[in-house]
């Protein structure tokens, strides 16, 4: 009896952290206020670092949509970032800089790649899905490496950031920062709306029990394919912003190590929560930045740290916060 009551309150607090509004409001307020604090110290450095955090948070959100809500563990998600970035780089090298053209191009390219590969990948399950997404990711990586006219292995410098309808709105670092914040907010709201919608309910149901979903009349493959394309396009959006922030495009954006880092971000933050993906991206990149400032052998510290998180922080950082909260409340 007492146990039942406990699990009921557990369900309630869980609901409040995952679908409640307090945490995301705090996250986005913090992002919004960073430039004000940055004005006092090392502005350019702080802005570019946190801009990077937000850009990768968009990609992590996209991945969480697949892993956390569809149990589709994609190990090739960096490819979509790279495709979005290359769309900007290649268009820019031909003198096309306007976001009105390059953003739709980035989204279309990543969306089409997701559609074409998703048709194949989604016919497999579990480990095979991981392997085949990895294979497609590597295919994109090697294709980019062999693009000799666009820098090949060395990548390609984006000489000018995107304009919007001719206006240089991306040129200023602070403006770029807020554009990324808006994009992240949009991506977050989109994902949250999606998973609660009719579509999202079928998609989540397919993770729980595809057999049952089929026998009530849903062809779950179609729902998973649409989610895969949406996730891929969000990856493309992240790539579009990354190319503008870094003013550089490289095949390394698509490497399998990058896909692995995205997975770590999502798992680190807590899968299936969306908030966790943002927190995970921030925690990963800031820890990396911090440790690499201490020693050049920072991976020696970072590796074991990840092992500790994997072992002891079930549910990621969100899960830890949840347990702490429960302890404080008795």
């Amino acid at each position: 009896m007492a146990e039942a009551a406990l699990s009921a309150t557990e369900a309630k607090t869980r609901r409040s952290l995952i679908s409640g509004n307090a945490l995301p409001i705090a996250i986005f307020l913090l992002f919004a206020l960073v430039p004000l604090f940055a004005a006092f110290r090392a502005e350019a450095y702080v802005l570019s670092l946190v801009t990077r955090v937000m850009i990768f948070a968009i990609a992590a959100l996209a991945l969480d949509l697949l892993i956390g809500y569809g149990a589709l563990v994609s190990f090739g998600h960096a490819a979509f970032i790279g495709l979005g970035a290359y769309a900007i780089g290649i268009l820019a090298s031909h003198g096309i800089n306007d976001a009105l053209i390059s953003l739709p191009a980035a989204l279309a390219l990543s969306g089409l790649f997701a559609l074409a590969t998703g048709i194949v990948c989604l016919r497999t399950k579990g480990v095979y899905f991981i392997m085949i997404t990895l294979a497609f990711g590597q295919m994109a990586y090697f294709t980019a490496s062999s693009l000799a006219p666009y820098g090949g292995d060395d990548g390609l410098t984006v000489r000018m950031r995107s304009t919007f309808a001719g206006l240089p709105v991306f040129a200023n670092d602070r403006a770029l920062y807020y554009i990324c914040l808006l994009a992240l907010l949009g991506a977050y709201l989109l994902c949250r709306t999606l998973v609660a919608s009719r579509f999202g309910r079928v998609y989540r149901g397919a993770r729980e029990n595809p057999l049952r979903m089929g026998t009530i009349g849903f062809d779950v493959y179609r729902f998973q394919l649409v989610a895969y394309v949406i996730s891929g396009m969000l990856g493309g959006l992240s790539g579009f912003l990354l190319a503008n922030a870094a003013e550089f495009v490289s095949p390394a954006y698509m490497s399998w190590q990058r896909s692995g880092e995205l997975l770590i971000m999502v798992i680190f933050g807590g899968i299936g929560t969306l908030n966790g993906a943002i927190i995970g991206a921030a925690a990963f990149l800031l820890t990396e930045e911090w440790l690499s400032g201490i020693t050049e052998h920072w991976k020696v510290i970072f590796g074991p740290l990840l092992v500790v998180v994997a072992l002891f922080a079930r549910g990621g950082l969100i899960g830890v916060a949840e347990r702490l909260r429960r302890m404080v409340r008795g």
Partner: protein
Amino acid sequence: MAEAVLRIQNLTKNFGGLRVTDGVTLDVMPGELHAVIGPNGAGKTTLINQISGLLAPDAGTILFAGEDVTTMPVAGRAQRGLARSFQITSILPRFSVLENVALAVQARRGTSFRFFGHAADEEELNAPAMAALAQVGLAERADAPAGELSHGEKRALELAIALAMEPKLLLLDEPMAGTGHDESERLVAVLRSLKGRFPMVLVEHDMTAVFALADRISVLIYGRILASGPPAQVRADPQVVTAYLGEEME
């Protein structure tokens, strides 16, 4: 004569060298409760799986509501009103009881490629779902996570999901499997209330329930229909008694 809802002809299925469905011919008339009984391993679940589309037969045809569905995928048959329950409970454990049923309603009402709006708050889906839950006596448990239901309640939930699909035919694969005495009595009462409103194929081991509910009984032994007819006739069939009922009745 009225058109049969389900008409199976010469259905045959082999698992390797083993013939698990052997030329089965069977039909279900509107409003009829057609029970399929037989010993373990007779191929009852295999037969249900072929009707619902989870397994493809090697030969034979399945006509559902006048349409040949022999090669149609599972989801397509479900959309046409073929609803089934599973012998081993198949629900969405982390969804609420209500959402389990509301999803079945959603499958029949409008498009599910709707990306905005909170599906869990749609009265258009929740009201019919609550009605289906009330029919099986689960209305009070609507908000509980489905995974936390008792075994008997999960069996009732399976029924509610099937009902919410506005089915033209119910395929019930041992709906009473593993339930206690009280729970199984409650489920029999539910089935009795559904009898006549929906045509049903009932696979069940509980002979008391089968003989009380069925309009017609087919006895399946080694994948083959041994006898088929009204309960009284089947009960009196000497072949059936030797092959199956003899042991069950003791």
